[in-house]
């Protein structure tokens, strides 16, 4: 990728330097954000800041970049490690149009897309509630709901690529052909050596992706198998304790309450409690979900919680006891 050392062309930057510049920029962006926040606080009050945190971040990013990259100047991070933008070939500085495109796609576009996606989703959800038929729109929603997953994968691959080759840190830079070059002459062989340690990171990301996709494939396969099982033996219930998917987890959590009620009218429950202290002093019935106050007096959970919310003390001995001090017995 780099040409021979004798040429007058500036050498392309390596991954490590670009990452360093990016970190520095992120730091300055966050400072920008704080200043903007202060500004809006004076202008519109704290409430405005709390309701539009995302917008302020985007604005800070866009402002920072348009004050530096758009004007043709370097960002503080780029200055820090002495990087300049060049175009794909590395022979000339990037034109204004790609720079504008980069800033828009880098700072503003993700926000706009997510906003559109959100409104699209909410409006279509309402519609799908009205009529249960599967329409093209619903198919679109499905596609969109996978949008983030797909984007995530693409970005990961891109980062891995960056770690391997050290070309473009973000996708929008690749699209608009903005590459970094060192502002000073550097021995390209040294550069090559230094970027070597980053390929390990790229390797890890690729490995992670590989494992993830394997797992996704497996769960997909399990689902298919399950579907087949269901059609074959519809009546047979899956009694396995392993949690296969979200659905079983959900049913488990729904059944959780009824499964774990401890009713002391059943003598096998908590046998260490003697017979004459198995009744709750408040409802005078055998305790359900016995819970101890700080002092050690035991009541039904429901009974004692109702009381302690109004009077934070034990009904029997009046020792101070807050709701969070109650200890359910198991």
């Amino acid at each position, binding site marked *: 990728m780099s040409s021979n050392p004798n040429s007058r062309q500036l050498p392309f930057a390596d991954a490590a330097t670009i990452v360093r510049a990016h970190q520095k920029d992120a730091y300055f962006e966050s400072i920008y954000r704080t200043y903007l926040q202060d500004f809006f606080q004076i202008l519109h009050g704290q409430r405005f800041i709390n309701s539009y945190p995302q917008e302020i971040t985007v604005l800070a990013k866009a402002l920072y970049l348009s004050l530096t990259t758009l004007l043709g100047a370097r960002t503080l991070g780029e200055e820090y490690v002495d990087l300049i933008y060049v175009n794909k070939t590395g022979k000339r500085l990037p034109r204004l149009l790609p720079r504008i495109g980069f800033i828009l796609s880098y700072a503003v576009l993700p926000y706009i897309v997510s906003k559109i996606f959100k409104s699209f989703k909410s409006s279509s959800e309402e519609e799908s509630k009205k009529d249960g038929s599967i329409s093209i729109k619903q198919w679109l929603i499905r596609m969109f709901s996978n949008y983030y997953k797909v984007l995530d994968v693409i970005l990961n691959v891109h980062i891995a690529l960056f770690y391997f080759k050290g070309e473009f840190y973000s996708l929008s830079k690749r699209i608009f052909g903005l590459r970094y070059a060192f502002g000073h002459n550097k021995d390209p062989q040294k550069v090559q050596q230094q970027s070597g340690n980053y390929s390990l990171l790229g390797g890890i990301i690729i490995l992670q992706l590989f494992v993830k996709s394997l797992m996704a494939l497996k769960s997909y396969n399990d689902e298919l198998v399950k579907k087949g099982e269901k059609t074959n033996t519809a009546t047979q219930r899956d009694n396995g304790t392993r949690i296969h998917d979200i659905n079983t987890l959900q049913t488990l959590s729904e059944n959780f309450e009824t499964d774990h009620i401890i009713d002391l009218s059943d003598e096998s429950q908590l046998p260490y409690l003697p017979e004459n202290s198995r009744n709750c*002093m*408040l*409802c*005078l*019935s055998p305790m359900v979900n016995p819970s101890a106050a700080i002092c050690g007096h035991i009541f039904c959970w*429901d*009974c004692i919680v*109702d*009381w302690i919310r*109004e009077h934070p003390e034990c*009904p*029997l001995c*009046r020792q101070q006891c807050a709701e969070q001090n109650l200890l359910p017995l198991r």
Partner: protein
Amino acid sequence: MAERRLFQEYNRYKKSPPSKSNPQIISLNPISEDNIFNWQAIISKPTKKDNPFYYGGQWKLSIAVSRQYPLEPPVIKFITPIVHPNINLKTGEICLDILKKDAWSPAWNLEHLLVAILMLLDSPEPDSPLNIDAANLYRHDPVGFQSMVQFNMWKVGSFVDVKKSTPTTITKSNQVIRDVSGSKIRAIIA
């Protein structure tokens, strides 16, 4: 919750009546089984040993239990008028801390409250009176207080009726007049 607890209490009182463990409690039951929230009770101080002022008397109480019971105390009032420093003569309202929200504990039941009221009869608290005249009399002239109590009991006819367990209502045939020592003078026969 209130209903279940009240039925539990009712069953308990049916199984082992409070009158057995404490003879001063004559009865404690709901007015009708249809409404478990309205109870009535009869308490008594049969002999002079039980109480130097109120001996020979018995009183009917109304107990109104709220839906929040036992998180809130029931409202107990004397139906039978009684001269007592901490009991309103006209309304029967009782000034007793554990009948107020702050000092009430849900671990107590109706029987406990009756015991507490019986104890209030034994030791009046003239420093926080509802019946100021009675409090003054009790503080400065115990003998006069005793006479006053007994006179009032005679007036409203709230003496222990040995034959019946229900409180005596004034009918001429069973009205009994006693002197201050508690011994029977004569019965008025119509």
